[in-house]
């Protein structure tokens, strides 16, 4: 529901901006290509690096609080589950670490370039690859964190009833955590061919 409202707001804003430009005689400024080639490649790169860590950590945090509340709640009556179920919390934490590592790897491509040589084809490629690579890692880790969190929550509740169930429900968590790994792989692939800023 929020997503629908956000998309509608975005479309309305760009529609109004476009109409204003057309009606005031500057319609040629509404130009996606001009926008993409006149914004600094650094802006794309840095936003990607920031989103990489930020969104991954949001996923990790979301997963941790979903799992943690269930562990704490079930642990009141079945206190034996509290140590073993920390594995689920660790699975969620690892998702945040993926984002951290990828951001550090991405920052190795950054180097200072001043003047108009910044706007070269190779630098655009690097900027766009950092943006989309970072966004991919971040959003995949977000989805992964939530999935692992929900699975960990149900694992904790099953464990509280019957200790032998924990390992079997852990399999579901493992399937959930591969999503973060896939995001990591694609982030690495996408930025591997990009040269440093020069």
């Amino acid at each position, binding site marked *: 529901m929020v997503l629908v409202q956000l998309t509608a707001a975005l479309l309305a804003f760009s529609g109004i901006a476009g109409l204003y430009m057309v009606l005031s005689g500057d319609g040629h400024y509404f130009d996606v290509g001009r926008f993409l080639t006149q914004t600094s490649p650094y802006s794309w790169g840095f936003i990607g690096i920031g989103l990489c860590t930020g969104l991954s950590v949001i996923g990790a945090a979301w997963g941790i609080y979903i799992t943690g509340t269930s562990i704490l709640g079930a642990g009141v009556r079945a206190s034996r589950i509290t140590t073993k179920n920390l594995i689920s919390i660790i699975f969620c934490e690892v998702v945040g670490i993926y984002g951290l590592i990828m951001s550090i790897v991405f920052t190795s491509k950054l180097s200072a370039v001043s003047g108009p040589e910044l706007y070269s084809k190779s630098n655009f490629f690097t900027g766009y690859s950092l943006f*989309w*690579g970072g*966004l*991919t890692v971040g959003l*995949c880790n977000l989805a992964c964190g939530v999935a692992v969190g929900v699975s960990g929550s149900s694992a904790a*509740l099953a464990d509280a009833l019957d200790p032998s169930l924990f390992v*079997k*429900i852990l399999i*579901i968590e493992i*399937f959930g955590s591969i999503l973060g790994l896939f995001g990591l792989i694609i982030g690495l692939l996408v930025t591997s061919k990009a040269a440093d800023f020069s």
Partner: protein
Amino acid sequence: MSLSEYCTPYAAFFGFAGVAASMIFSSIGAAYGTAKAGIGIAGVGQFDPTLIMKSLIPVVMSGIIAVYGLVMAVLISGDMSPAENYSLYNGFIHLAAGSCVGLTGLAAGYTIGVIGDAGVRAFLEQQRIFVSMVLILIFAEVLGLYGLIVGLILNTKTTAEC
């Protein structure tokens, strides 16, 4: 038709958007499928632990949806490099292919999650319903496969000329 004026430097933006769309949306679908089916499986396991292994099928199928997205993302990013010619044509093809796989994967993963949850709960009550559950799950999985097929066909149409 000459593509020389369309080998713009910003074409890579759309190509990478395709990679991202492919991986992100299929991950969201797979995450929903894993989590939703996982809730049902954990519930089923509390009543009859011997059924858990067979009930893991929806979770595996959600993983396969994520793999579809991974495959397309790897294929698209393999075609892109800063040295070779990359036209807007290629960029939009990759965006289309990635969106195809991603959005169908999102739909398929969501469906697998809902069917998996309801299916394993029914499987707990009536063991013979297992075959129906698997059949419906296969139909849901095949939705993601349709997207992969169209994405692969689109991906073959890229051109190296500029």
